[in-house]
Structure formats: C-alpha cells, structure tokens
C-alpha cells in the first residue's frame, strides 16, 4: 500500500534552499519527514471504553487489493504482504479466491458427510467434529496462480499484486484421517473427492495417502472460527498443496477408486508445457520467497540503513536458508531466519542493508530442506515455456533507482 506518512511540517524556507545547499532531493524529503515528539501530542482526555470485538487503529489502512471487478464473485483479493509482519497473515487480510461468491452458512446446521467406499457413511455436525481430537498447526496456503502475472516479465506494480495470493495462519481442526477412520475406508479407496457448499460446488480430488497423512478439516483460524471468506464453518487444509485443493465450505468427502477429474483439476490448475502436454495434479507448491520490504511502490528517503524483510515458504517441508542480493545477483548473503522455522508455513527472513544511494536490484532466493533452490524466471521459462500459467515461483527482483523509487525489477 503506501508508506506510512508522518504529517509534513511546513519547512522554514523553500525546498530550493535544500537543493542549493547541495543536499539531494531525497534527503531533503527525509528531513521534511523527520519525526518529532511533543508533549502536546499526548492524549489529555479519556480514551475509548472496552469493547466486545476489537478493530484496528483508524490510522492503519492496509487492505486486500481486489481482482477483476467485472466478476467480483469469481476472482481474487490479494493480501497486502508489505504491510503484514511476522509469519501470520491477519484473518481479515488473508487472500481470497472464490469461484461463485461467499456462501452464508450456519455452523448450527452445516454438516460434513463422509461416504463412498466406506464401511459406514456418516454425517457430522460441527459440534461433533469439535468433540474429536483437535490439532492446531501453522500452514501457508498459496494459490497456484500466485505470481502468474509475472510469467512474461514485470507486470504487477507491487508485492501485493505480484505475490499476495499466499497467506499463513494457525489452523485448528481435526485430522481428516481421524474422521475417515470413523467411517472406515475400504481397501479400494485410493482417492477422495472433497466438495464445498458454495454455489459452484467446487470439488477437488486428492490421493488417499495424502488425505491420511496430514490433511486437516479446519473450523478455526488464528484462534477464532473461520471467516466466511475462508470457508466458514469448515474447510480443508492440505498443507503445502496448491490453494484450490484447500476446499472451503467443506460439506462432503467421498472416497473413490479414481480421481473425479473435475473442471478445477483438468480445464484449470493444469500446467501447459511447450510440447503441448499439460501437467496434471501438480500438488506441491515449490519453494518461493519474496522481499516484502522494501518492495515495489515505495520510495526510500535516502541512502542509509534499511532492513530487508520478506517471506519464504515451500510445499516440501521447511525453509533451509534464504540468501539476499543487493547488487543485482553478483553476490548473495545469508539472511537471518526468524525462529521458529515451521514446515509448510511462511518463514520470515531479514537482512540489514546499507544502501549507498546508487541504482541497484535487490532480491531473495530460498533453498528448502530438500536442497531445491528457487529458480530465476529465465530458468523457469526454459523448463516450462511461457504458458504454464500456474506455479510461478521465480526469484522476484525489485529495482531501486538513485532517487529511491522501488519498482518491479523483472
């Protein structure tokens, strides 16, 4: 979004004085913005009383950026990554991808039906699910279309629109394996089909081994019930796997002996290669990282020390290291990783940078615990061609001009 603005004090003289004195315009701006403290600014009267449900300061304005306005019920909203901190995305700012709008579902009447190749088809109320052994875990969810705008070079103006289709939350629910054991999976069950209760009944198939491994049926996010736009009252969390598989508004799980080949795993979310074939069921999200500060759309007030901060994640385990370049890729320096580094969750990295005021490119590069190294866009294009669409995890450079203006450096 925007750089936090401190009200500019009226300068004593004209800006030209600073310029004539040989100070750069950026430094002049910095001087104009220099914070001052004053007892007169401290409150002298009583504040607001206690309240039932909190809201943020009226001085904070970060918002999700909305996608295609022509189809507001089948589009995305991007999380403002530059204005989030740590590894948790506030639930209110978690990215969205809906295919038929957000349904209004009541947790008192919503149910989950498990059927198909099971010994006992069962219906669970939300209250019954909450009586099963619960688990809380931090997991990222990334839409496989995240960063698809950048396949052909710089397109998005800022990190929100280039990378804002990833978010990370603490999810609470029941392991799907616990629920499936209540119904008793039959030996022929090799896949599940999970379906949402949205108008389009969005449905995805998942292999049974993944379903039994670490898939969560979540009813809570960041300590409170799911938000409607995140699947209230029930959603699937498929750790490390492309967002579309994390079926929201979950109401039905069917055990089957082959994938259903729904529209969302054939026509969409398949990756076209140069030879005309398309990869299908590309579940895991490859290791990816991006600098969120400084990033596109902001202006650095002048040479000096800046903390470079960003997010890294991988669908194949934990982040092992993140390296930072501030000279366009000539040299790389290991960033500090904020503990705890959790598998299948966002990892926050940081590195202190002394900018000399010259034009440069800055970027981050993640290596995950499997040894996989985040590729450049050129390497990805060589491997996949221009029309793969999904799963763009390329290194994202930001260009910093001598005036401190930060733009998309692809």
């Amino acid at each position, binding site marked *: 979004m925007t750089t936090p603005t401190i009200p500019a004090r009226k300068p004593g003289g004209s800006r030209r004085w600073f310029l004539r004195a040989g100070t750069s315009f950026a430094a002049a701006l910095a001087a104009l913005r220099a914070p001052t403290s004053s007892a007169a600014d401290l409150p002298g009267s009583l504040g607001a009383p206690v309240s039932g449900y909190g809201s943020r300061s009226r001085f904070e304005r970060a918002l999700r950026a909305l996608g295609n306005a022509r189809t507001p019920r089948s589009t995305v909203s991007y999380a403002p990554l530059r204005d989030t901190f740590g590894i948790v995305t506030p639930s209110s700012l978690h990215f969205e991808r809906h295919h038929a709008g957000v349904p209004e579902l009541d947790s008192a009447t919503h149910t989950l039906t498990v059927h198909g190749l099971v010994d006992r088809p069962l219906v669970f109320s939300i209250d019954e699910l909450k009586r*099963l052994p619960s688990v809380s875990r931090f997991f990222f969810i990334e839409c496989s279309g995240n960063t698809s705008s950048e396949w052909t070079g710089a397109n998005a103006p800022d990190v929100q629109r280039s990378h804002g289709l990833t978010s990370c939350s603490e999810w609470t629910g029941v392991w799907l394996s616990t629920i499936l054991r209540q119904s008793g999976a039959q030996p022929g069950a090799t896949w599940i089909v999970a379906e949402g209760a949205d108008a389009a009944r969005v449905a995805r198939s998942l292999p049974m081994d993944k379903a039994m491994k670490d898939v969560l049926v979540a009813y809570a996010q960041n300590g409170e019930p799911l938000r409607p736009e995140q699947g209230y009252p029930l959603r699937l969390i498929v750790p490390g796997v492309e967002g579309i598989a994390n079926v929201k508004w979950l109401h039905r799980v*069917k055990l089957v002996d082959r994938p259903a080949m729904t529209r969302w795993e054939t*026509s969409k979310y398949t990756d076209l290669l140069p030879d005309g074939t398309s990869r299908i069921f590309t579940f895991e999200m490859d290791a990816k990282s991006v600098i969120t500060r400084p990033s596109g759309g902001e202006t650095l007030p002048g040479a000096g020390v800046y903390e470079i901060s960003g997010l890294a994640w991988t669908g194949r385990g934990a982040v092992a290291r993140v390296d930072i370049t501030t000279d366009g890729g000539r040299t790389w320096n290991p960033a500090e990783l904020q503990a705890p580094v959790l598998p299948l969750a966002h990892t926050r990295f940081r590195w202190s940078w002394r900018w000399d005021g010259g034009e440069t490119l800055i970027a981050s590069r993640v290596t995950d615990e499997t040894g996989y190294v985040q590729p450049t866009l050129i390497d990805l294009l060589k491997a996949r061609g221009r029309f793969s669409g999904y799963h763009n995890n390329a290194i994202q450079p930001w260009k910093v001009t001598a005036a401190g203006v930060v733009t998309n450096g692809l």
Partner: protein
Amino acid sequence: MVSSRATVAIAALLCLTCAAAAAQSPALGLGHPASPEAVKAIDIDVLPDGRGLPPGHGTAAAGKPLYIAHCGACHGATGTEGPNDLLAGGRGTLTSARPIKTVGSFWPYATTLWDYINRAMPYEQPHSLAADDVYSITAFVLFLNGIVGERDVVSETTLPLVKMPNQNGFVPDNRANENLPRR
C-alpha cells in the same frame, strides 16, 4: 478337543485382530449414519467412466436453444466469442505462440463438461437445469467442437464413450525431472 496351546494361539490372534480393528476405527461413536437417500441427494460427482451420471439424454439440436438462452451471454453464440471462457475452437493451438484452451482443444474428459454444467452453470442460477437439459447443452458444446453430430444422442451410457481430442495430452507431475540449476 482343542489343545490348550491352540487356545492360547487363537486367543492371541483374536487379540491382535481386536488391536488392529481398534487402530483402524477408534470407537469414538461420533457421527450419525448417513442414509443412502441423504447421500444420493447431495452426491453429484460424475467420474470419467460415467459413474454418477443420472439417467437422461439430449442432443445438440435440442441443446442449441438452451445454450443460447442460458450460456450465450457469457460464452458467445458459437462458444468462441467470450467474454468468459472460450468453449470451442483452438484445436492444434496448444504448441503455438497463442494457445487457446477450450473444451475441444484442451478438456480431457466429456464427463467433466456434464459435471461442471450440472454443478456450477448457468453461473447466476446453478442447479436450475434438469438432467436432460444438461445432456443437451453438453451435446451442443461437444457439437460446436465437432466432437459429436447434431442428432447424436448423448446419454449416461454414450457420454463416457466420447473420446476427447486432448484426452492423452496430460502427464503426471514430473517437475522433479526439470533441469533447474542447483547451487
């Protein structure tokens, strides 16, 4: 007469069976039986082999006016005009400089078309079409792609037999074989 040794062995076996059963289905007693009727009312999945398709039939000829009324505004009179997803044309473009992914050029299974129309279309009024109407609109979209004839009957038995042009165009996830540089 069963020897005491055999009795012990049988008891041990029974115990093992119990343990295995307990591990498979912890007797938590939660969840209520879902009746076949209740499941049938919500189970709309259609598999590529046709399982899940309800009895019914349609033709492209019957589907054309339904398509124009329910689909034309978003997908165009011949499925090539947009403004939303293109449904027809694009054959042979997947390796070109401008790939066009349509039902005819890209979708691997005809059953997916029936399933998607049935669960999500028309966009503003999903779940409003009768099964026969879904068969007819499916037939018309296949006809627009030259995959079935105008009078061919598309039904729960014939639809799974339709071979889509790009059915063999999909490969499993082989990203591990990509020659991306390692450090």
